[in-house]
């Protein structure tokens, strides 16, 4: 008896569930529905909803549903489950450091053939670095880059003026960074705020003529302990451990760099375009962006931060998904999304347009992002890369904040990375 009752409840519930499913059967004339999975906060979601509305107006046979999640990890969890469960979204927006695993699994429909056949978009419309980052095999474009954010130095102009240091709008050297940061450290303020992670360290390594891995196409180990890369690693750690211009461990735990910068307690803050909308709320002082400092005798280079639209294969709606991309990457779509201030457009015409470079909305020197878009470099495109970063960043941060010895950190990073690269 007691076994039959739950069974009866289960049958009723499954019946109800089946009925709700039957109601969703597609009507031939009804618009086909596409889902775009992406990471975004409330403001970004509003921007994408506006784009979806404009898309539906222009394409009566399709509707676009925006499915937002809060973090990259949430996106990966939902995506992996949905793919395994046979019900993936038709489209998703993902960072270039995370998409490799989906190419390896054969989940993606390559966008290259669609781009080649497109009347609306042309490969030459876009800046090269993000395209390069999303060519997984080096020649075929896997996903369509949406934006081309890069690592910049946000600077507190009032702190620079108070320290009597000229703002390095035309570029600066590593030594000049140290001098400026030292001049602004003291009285509770700090010269420089940066996360200690592989993607923050990498541009210093590249600028000094070094490499982060032994082979960018097929990496087997990290090369931070060698030659110019080792010099860059030491320079980066010295900012915290020798020069003391970075907030120490306890300070970082009590207040993150962005909050400290907003409060006026940080002279230079390294981050991507992501911080711009937040920093636009600052009223207490003036701020701007400048390029990253260049190594002695080195090259100006920066880290790419780019997301792209990826099409999931096998849904039967791949061509419709490409139409969404064409709309989103067209002038109307890009303009709607650029309004948040969060996005650096990957289309050359929009990137160089007065609309994006408008100096009336800070930062006054937005062209730093446009220039950076041409010199940005990407991390290796291998499926294991996201895991390598997760594993290595922990040790790097511990060394940067003085919790462990820098040699120990190097050894630990080398071991972890080698294991993960070997596993593929």
């Amino acid at each position, binding site marked *: 008896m*007691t076994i039959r009752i*739950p069974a009866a409840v289960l049958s009723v519930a499954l019946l109800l569930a089946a009925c709700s499913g039957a109601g*969703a059967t597609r009507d031939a004339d009804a618009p086909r529905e596409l889902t775009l999975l992406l990471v*975004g906060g409330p403001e*970004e979601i509003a921007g994408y909803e506006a784009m979806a509305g404009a898309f539906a107006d222009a394409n009566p046979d399709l509707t676009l*549903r925006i499915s*937002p999640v809060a973090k990259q990890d949430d996106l990966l969890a939902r995506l992996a489950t949905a793919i395994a469960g046979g019900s993936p*979204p038709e489209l998703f927006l993902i960072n270039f450091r995370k998409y490799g695993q989906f190419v390896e699994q054969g989940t993606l429909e390559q966008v290259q053939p669609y781009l080649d056949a497109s009347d609306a978009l042309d490969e030459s419309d876009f800046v090269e670095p993000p395209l390069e980052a999303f060519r997984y095999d080096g020649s075929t474009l896997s996903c369509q880059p949406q934006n081309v954010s890069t690592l910049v130095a946000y600077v507190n102009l009032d702190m620079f003026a108070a320290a009597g240091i000229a703002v390095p709008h035309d570029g600066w050297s590593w030594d000049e960074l140290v001098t400026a940061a030292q001049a602004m450290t003291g009285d509770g303020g700090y010269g420089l705020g940066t996360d200690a992670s592989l993607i923050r360290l990498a541009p210093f390594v590249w600028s000094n003529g070094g490499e982060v891995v032994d082979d960018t196409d097929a990496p087997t180990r990290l090369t931070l302990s060698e030659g110019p890369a080792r010099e860059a690693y030491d320079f980066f750690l010295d900012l915290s451990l020798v020069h003391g211009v970075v907030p120490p461990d306890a300070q970082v735990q009590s207040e993150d760099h962005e909050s400290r910068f*907003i409060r006026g307690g940080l002279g230079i803050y390294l981050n991507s375009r992501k911080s711009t909308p*937040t920093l636009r709320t600052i009223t207490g002082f003036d701020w701007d962006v400048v390029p990253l400092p260049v190594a002695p005798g080195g090259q100006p280079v920066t880290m790419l931060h780019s997301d792209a639209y990826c099409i999931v294969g096998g849904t039967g709606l791949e061509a419709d998904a490409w139409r969404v991309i064409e709309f989103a990457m067209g002038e109307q779509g890009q303009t709607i999304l650029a309004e948040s201030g969060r996005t650096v457009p990957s289309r050359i015409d929009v990137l160089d347009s007065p609309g994006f470079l408008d100096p009336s909305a800070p930062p006054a020197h937005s062209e730093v992002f446009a220039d950076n878009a041409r010199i940005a470099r990407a991390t290796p495109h291998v499926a294991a890369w996201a895991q390598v970063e997760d594993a290595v960043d922990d040790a790097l941060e511990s060394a940067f904040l003085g919790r462990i010895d820098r040699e120990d950190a190097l050894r630990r990073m080398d071991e972890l990375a080698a294991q993960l690269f070997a596993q593929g």
Partner: protein
Amino acid sequence: MVALGAVLFALPMVVMVLGSLRGRGLPPPRGLELLPAEASLSAYSAIWGALPWATYLRNSLLVVAFAVPLSLLVGSLAGWGIRLLPARQKRAVVTLTFVALLVPVTAVWATRFELFRLVGAVDTLVPLIALGLVATSPFYVLVYAWAFHRLDPGVLDAAAVDGAGPLRSWWSIAMPQVRPVTLAITVLAFTFHWGNFLDPLLYLSSPDVYTAPLGLRLMQQLAPTDWPLLMAGATALAVPSVLVFLVGQRVFLHDPLHLLERR
């Protein structure tokens, strides 16, 4: 000692509420502020504009309204079933229930998703409510089984002699005597379903079926200067759980409505 424990547990709530009162547009405080700068309740009105909270809260309430009673029904019936089994089978079923308790949720994600997809229930509230069909947690079944075991066998035998079947005995004799357990499991199941983040994250993709915990997570993307909104959202989401706990605790300790008296 108890007071110290209470203070430790209440402190995060206090920080959350104080944080929600801080004026918007200011950088977050560097420590605990007893009097928030430019204190106001504006964050509580502003959260409604940031995200469709009315929809999220309605969905969360729907889930709780169905999933909690379902969990109680299935949990108590299953526990009663265990109580009625002969000793050997009982041991086997209790062992199996323990094993079920040990299975990590991550191990059944993909298969559950596949099942719900087959019945067309992905992206509806059904997968969240359906957790009630397995009593939400095997733990609730075990608690009921344990409680039913403490009932006087003589009373049950007498009821059987009078012609009461197992269902009649469950409803009229067993359930009225385990009301404290029902109350405790109501509180536990409510707290679980109200705060459940992982299942909605995996099963729901349309914002119009999102539940409140997903909304709160999206608020984490707000700028640090807008964190009062995040804290206001967190406070609003915590209030129902706190209320259910406080009411439950009151009933446990004083039983003002005589709900727990054995009849």
